[in-house]
Each structure stands twice: as structure tokens, then as C-alpha cells.
């Protein structure tokens, strides 16, 4: 009942693309005493596809982890669906409708594919068979291999398991940390195609990606981050055309 309602609301949201979903303002965050981010601003509207690019150590992943409550909050605000979520713990943030796919070790290797998906819906009382079926429709290879241990699968398939698990609760926003890392070049395009499809189904995407050119080509909007601060923000296409961005951050 509640989920249907959420789905309806999301559908309504996706019609109006200007509906603010995530609003990060002046965010300072880091790990322990070490501050990484300084006054970072970032927005994602409902159904939008946003990419963060920048050099190594720019704090791209830290932005994402901060949204998900995995860093030390030091100031500013993170608002999701008109609710302050900074200082919340990850399991509370999942309840609000954000899913997160970490970069490494993102599947439970000793659990089967199906069990991995079940864990994605742990906070629900019942195992939602229809949601599992939905993920199997999205990633058919997972249906074939549902009883295989996730640890025995290839990198690309593991990435699918990780995404499917994060999508089990039908989040409004999916955080993807370097989804193409470690994938063979031909699989990278498939991975980006899959992300496009997830986005087309109405889920907003916030993605950190090393493969910056491809990511900017695919996304609606991009942020360039350096040394923990905002540098540029524009549509993906505009950032690709921006001479300064190309010179400094995209290797010419």
C-alpha cells in the first residue's frame, strides 16, 4: 500500500523534472578529524541523471558517502525529499529512499544471488518476490544464476547483483560509485546502457565515474570536483565542450 503510494508519487515527480530530490548545501565532511569536503553544493532533481567527475582524491566518492551517512558530518546540510538527512545512519537513509552501490566488495560473495537480493530488502517484513522478479527482468542473467554464489561470478555480473540489490527497495535515488571500475572495455558500454535503462524507469542517478567522458556523454548534468570543492557545474554536453574542463580534467 505504502509502496504503491510511493511509486505513484515518484511517477508524478518524474513528470515534473524540476522537483528537487536531493539538495546538498555548503557541505563540510570527512573522516574522523580529517576534512575532505569544503562547502560542496550539489542538486539532483527527481529522475535526473547526475555525474560527479574530477581527479583522484578530489572527494568524489566522499560526496556520495556523505549523502549516505558514511562520513563524519562537519557542517552544511543534506536535504532529501524536503527532509534533513545529514547525521542520519545508513539504515535510516535507506528507509528514506536512497540506494547505494559501493565501488569494491559490493556483493556478499558467500551468499547466492537470490540471497543477495533478499538482503537488499531486509528492512521489509516479507521477502518481496515481485521485487526480486522485477530485478530478474532487468538483469535476466541473474535469474539463470539465482542459486549461484555471488562470489563465483564475473565482475560484470557481480556489478549487476550489486545494482539489483540496491534497487530492491525501489529507491528514488541510486548512488553509484565507479560502476565501470575493473570491467573489461566491452562490458563498460553494457554497464552504461543498463544505468540508462534504470534511469529511464524513473530512478534518479548520482554517479561517480573515472570514465569521465563517457559518463558526461550519458548524464543530464555533471559536477567537476577538485580538492574537495566545486569547480564546474553544467549539463554533461556543455562540460564536454568546455575548453578549461577538457584541458584540466578530461586530458585534453
Amino acid at each position, binding site marked *: 500500500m505504502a509502496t504503491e503510494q510511493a511509486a505513484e508519487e515518484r511517477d508524478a515527480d518524474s513528470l515534473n523534472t524540476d522537483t528537487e530530490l536531493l539538495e546538498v548545501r555548503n557541505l563540510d565532511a570527512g573522516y574522523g578529524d580529517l576534512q575532505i569536503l569544503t562547502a560542496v553544493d550539489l542538486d539532483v532533481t527527481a529522475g535526473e541523471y547526475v555525474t560527479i567527475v574530477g581527479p583522484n582524491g578530489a572527494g568524489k566518492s566522499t560526496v556520495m558517502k556523505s549523502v*549516505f551517512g*558514511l562520513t563524519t558530518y562537519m557542517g552544511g546540510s543534506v536535504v532529501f525529499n524536503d527532509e534533513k538527512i545529514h547525521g542520519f545512519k*545508513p*539504515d535510516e537513509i*535507506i*528507509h528514506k529512499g536512497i540506494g*547505494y552501490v*559501493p565501488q569494491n*566488495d*559490493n*556483493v*556478499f*560473495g*558467500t*551468499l547466492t544471488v537470490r*540471497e543477495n537480493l*533478499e*538482503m*537488499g530488502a*531486509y*528492512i521489509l517484513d516479507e*521477502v518481496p518476490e515481485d521485487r526480486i522478479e522485477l530485478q530478474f527482468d532487468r538483469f535476466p542473467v541473474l535469474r539463470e544464476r539465482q542459486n549461484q554464489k555471488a562470489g563465483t561470478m564475473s565482475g560484470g555480473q557481480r556489478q549487476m547483483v550489486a545494482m539489483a*540489490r540496491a534497487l530492491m*527497495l525501489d529507491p528514488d535515488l541510486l548512488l553509484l560509485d565507479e560502476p565501470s571500475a575493473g570491467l573489461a572495455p566491452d562490458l563498460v558500454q553494457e554497464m552504461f546502457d543498463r544505468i540508462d535503462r534504470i534511469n529511464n524507469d524513473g530512478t534518479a542517478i548520482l554517479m561517480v565515474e573515472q570514465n569521465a567522458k563517457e559518463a558526461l556523454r550519458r548524464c543530464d548534468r555533471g559536477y567537476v570536483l577538485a580538492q574537495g570543492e566545486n569547480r564546474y557545474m553544467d549539463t554533461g554536453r556543455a562540460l564536454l565542450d568546455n575548453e578549461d574542463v577538457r584541458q584540466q580534467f578530461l586530458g585534453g
Partner: protein
Amino acid sequence: MGVTESRRLDRHTIREQAPLILVGVFGALLLVDLLFRLAGVEIALTANRSFGGSLSAQRFGGMLWNGIVIGLIIGLAGIGLSMTYSILSFANFSHGDLLTSGAFAGWAASYVVAGFGVVSVGELLFVRAGGGAPFADEIGASIVQAPLSILVGMVVAAGVTILLALAIDRIVYKPMRGRGGISLLIASIGVALALRYIIQFMFGASNRGVVDTTDVRVDIAGLSVNLHEVTLVVAAVALMLGMHFMLQRTKLGKAMRAMADNQDLALVTGIPTERIVQATWVIGGGLAGVAGYLVVLDRGTIGFNLGWFLLLLIFAAVILGGIGSIYGAIAGGLLIGITYSVSLVWIPSDFNEAAAFALMILVLLLRPEGIFSGVSTA
């Protein structure tokens, strides 16, 4: 160049295989010797050394059975140790004293149920602390005389140990969560000492008989079986099967395996990690308590350091089986138990514990990660 390289490789593999071959030869010799003994064949080697000998099949069967009984206890206790290791990431040295706590709590309950009205409750509660009355056969503390008391004892052993484990976690381990395995390990040694001497203070230092063994041996199909051992085997196997079902089929069990697999991921997946930790203590503590109770049922005696002495064997079983795997703990327990018991064919009983540890070292030399490691966690 290619030739020398491949030859070096050959020599290298031979050197790697040498220990395995040696172990194989030694094991084969033992097996042949055992078969000779069972067949009653003896080949004199020197004046007082011989190969083979005589060993009745019945005596050997008894040893094997005894080994399985000990092995199941060690395995049952090992499950909890292995789970706390994989989910809380530290080696819990107070696990043995949780066994002792369960043993005393359980037997106090058994005594109260069996001896109610015969002796005053105060005396019953301290399980013959003075070493005097009430004697076990006076109140009939056995599965034959008072089966209900044994059942109640097992339940109370589990319940009290669970509460104790949760309380210790709340007071000692929870504030230290995330401090790393070594700090927690050292804290657990402190907890072990505290528990042991609180138990000694309450229940006394004497090692005393508490189990009535009158009529517990019965003949079933021509075999003399000890009903207490049967009780132990049934209880242990049932609990192990229950554990297997819980871990493979229930949501909680799957979450425990997920958490043992990858704690950081469990956290970002939305698994309530703190609740899983508590469930781990409930299950690990409960099994330890029952194991402690059953050890006493098997041996007939209780003492404040019974768990501490068992702890080394439990660790050996868990490490041998592959630390972190409950199936490894069960398999390791059985291997250690059977070695402990069957090694008596060749060596005097003062050394059979050494045989169990020798087996552990041997297995670890050949397979450092243990038998089951990486196959199935939690």
C-alpha cells in the same frame, strides 16, 4: 633454459609435496596397524615393539563412539566461538567460561527440579558446593530418574548463558566495538578470569560428581549404551541441524552470513548490524551453555575450570575446521574428538590431548586456511 626451469619446477613441486607424502605414509601405517590389531595379527619387530596386536572391535567401537560424543560437544561449543569470531571479528577467550556458567546454572536448575522437597532449595542451588550432601543418587539426577530435570537444566543452561553473554556484550564489548580484534581479545581474557572466579566464589573450588549414573546403561540390540550419551548426541545433533536450518533458510540466518561475509556492505545494505550482533550472542551463548551442561552430563563431574580446560580443544577444532565456518567447527570438533579418543590405541591417556593438537598442526601445515574456510561462512 626451458629444460632447467621445468626441472627446477619438478624439484620444487616434489619438495612441496614431501610433507603430504610423509603424512600419507604415516597415516597409512597407522591404518594398517589398526586393521592388524582389529584382526588380531601381531608381527614382532624388536623385543618389546611390535606391529599390530589385538584390539577387540567392541573396544574400538567404544573408542569411536566416545570420540563422537566428545567431538559433538566440542563442535557445539565451537559453533558459538566461530560465529562470534566471524561476526564480531575477535577470538573470544571467555567462551570456555560461558560453558562453565551454563553448566552450573543448568545443573543448579536440574538439582532444584530433581531434589525439590528432598533437600532445601538453598543447598540444591549450589550444586554440592561443599562436596557433601545431597549426593547425586539421593535426588536421582539422571535422565532415567528425572528426565524433566535434565530437560529443564538444558533450557536454563541456555537461558542463563544467553543473558550473561548479552550483559557482558553490553558492559564490556559494545563500548569497544570497532577497536580491533586484539583489544577485544584481551578484554575477553579479563572477562574469562572474572567469570571463572565469580563461579568459584559462588559454587566452590571442588571438582565433584553431580550426575546419578544408576541404571543409565541399558542394552539396546545387544549393545550397551549410556542413555546420558544418547541424550547428548540427540541434543547436539538436533541443535546443529537447527543451526543449519536457521542459517540457510531464515532471514536472520542469511543476515548473519551476510554480516560475517562483509560488515561494511551489511551496513550499507540496511541490515541492522547491532541487532545481528545481539542475535549472535544469543545463539553463541545459548549453544555454549547447553554444551557446558552436556559436558557435565557426559563426564559426571562439575568444576569451576571445566570450560577453561576445554577452550583449547574448542579453539583447535574451530581453527582446524576453518575459523568462521560453523560447518568447519562441527567437522573440526568431530575430528578432534575422534583423534582424542582413538589415539588411545597407540598412546597412553596422558598424551591423547597432545595427539589432538598434533592433528591440528598437521592439518594447518597442509591447509593453512582450515578445512572449510571460504566455503561457507558463519
